[in-house]
């Protein structure tokens, strides 16, 4: 099903541009064409389908669904809904306040905020298409687990004291956005709008990710990675997480890098730890969350997630050794 993108890249890179397979430039250009076409086509198709069937959940709906439930239900529900709720990171602050205002515990709210950037339907499908469905499923499972675990830990530690005081004073109005009509034309228009909105938000991250992946694929020799990131180096996983923290990208944008590294023989756990770290931990996100969280909670959040990603990395590496 995805072989068509390989053939397209063959045609463009080797036949049309006259590049030679096996040469660094030929391999890099081939990788670039194949991944750019594959990812953008999948991205547009998936987002359009989700938009058409109204399968996306809005933060307002999540707030209503999760609010007032017991912990057994609310944690798994929050991370699952986090995976299918696309929201711009600039909405993190109103979302955070809105959840707490609805009486949703801090731990559940954080579980949602952890899972949401890490897992989304687009990233999962593209991960499956490039690295196989077993890896994609394990990535989702690990992401949900980290979300629930991280949220529970924050709850158990009673970190509400490290939420900015003004947050607790805000009261939310209950005005509701009017429902759009349910005609075919309205659905198509909505789906098109979703594609424009989401592609517009992440295309640059995807392009940079593919360019990086192509560069790694074509120009960095395998021996480089076996030397520094092979199974023999126990520090490769923490290092991958550390590298990922300051880097900011969408989960989908990291996949080409993940793909290139995996092909070079970097162990899957190390690569997925990097992916989680890039997607879920980032400086811009921390700066946004700083508006509602005191520095102590930001620090704890980063520590918990880093430790969790390192754990996931070692786990995957052991499972697939």
């Amino acid at each position, binding site marked *: 099903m995805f072989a068509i993108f390989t053939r397209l890249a063959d045609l463009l890179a080797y036949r049309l541009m006259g590049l030679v397979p096996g040469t660094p430039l030929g391999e890099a250009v081939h990788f670039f064409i194949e991944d750019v076409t594959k990812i953008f086509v999948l991205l547009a198709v998936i987002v359009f389908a989700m938009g058409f069937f109204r399968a996306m959940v*809005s*933060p*307002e709906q999540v*707030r209503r669904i999760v609010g007032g439930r017991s912990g057994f239900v609310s944690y798994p529900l929050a991370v699952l809904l986090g995976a299918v709720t696309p929201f711009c990171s*600039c*909405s993190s602050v*109103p979302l955070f306040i809105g959840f707490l205002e609805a009486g949703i515990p801090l731990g559940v709210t954080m579980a949602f905020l952890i899972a949401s950037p890490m897992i989304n339907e687009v990233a999962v499908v593209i991960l499956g298409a490039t690295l196989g469905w077993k890896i994609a499923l394990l990535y989702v499972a690990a992401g949900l687990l980290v979300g629930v675990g991280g949220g529970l830990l924050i709850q158990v530690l009673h970190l509400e004291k490290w939420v900015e005081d003004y947050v607790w004073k805000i009261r939310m109005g209950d005005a*509701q956005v009017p429902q759009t009509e349910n005609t075919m034309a309205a659905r198509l228009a909505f789906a098109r*709008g979703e594609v424009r909105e989401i592609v517009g938000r992440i295309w640059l991250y995807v392009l940079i990710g593919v360019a990086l992946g192509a560069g790694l694929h074509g120009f960095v020799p395998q021996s480089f990675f076996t030397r520094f990131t092979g199974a023999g180096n126990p520090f490769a996983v923490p290092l991958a997480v550390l590298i990922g923290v300051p880097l900011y990208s969408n989960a989908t944008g990291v996949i080409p890098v993940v793909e290139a590294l995996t092909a070079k023989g970097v162990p899957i756990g190390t690569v997925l730890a990097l992916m989680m770290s890039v997607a879920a931990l980032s400086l811009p996100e921390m700066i946004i969350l700083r508006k509602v969280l005191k520095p102590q909670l930001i620090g704890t959040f980063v520590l918990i997630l880093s430790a969790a990603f390192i754990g996931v990395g070692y786990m995957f590496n052991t499972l697939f050794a």
Partner: protein
Amino acid sequence: MLHIKVLGSGCRNCVNTANLIEKKAAELGVPVKLEKVTGMAEIMQAGVMSTPGVVVDGKLVHAGGVPSPKTVAEWLKTPAPSSPA
């Protein structure tokens, strides 16, 4: 004159939304008073969690993402129903 508020912390989507409304209003020749609301308390008060939100004459008409130019044109054309007190 329509009183339009764009609710959002000042992210790119909020700025784009405000610009779009301004452009459409000028195009259609509809006089509007455009206000950007950045205070979190007021944004939440309007019931908005996904920014940018848009309030036309006291009524919430949009939340989350940049609205399409067509949608904006509809807000400007139809006289907004008066908000429930």
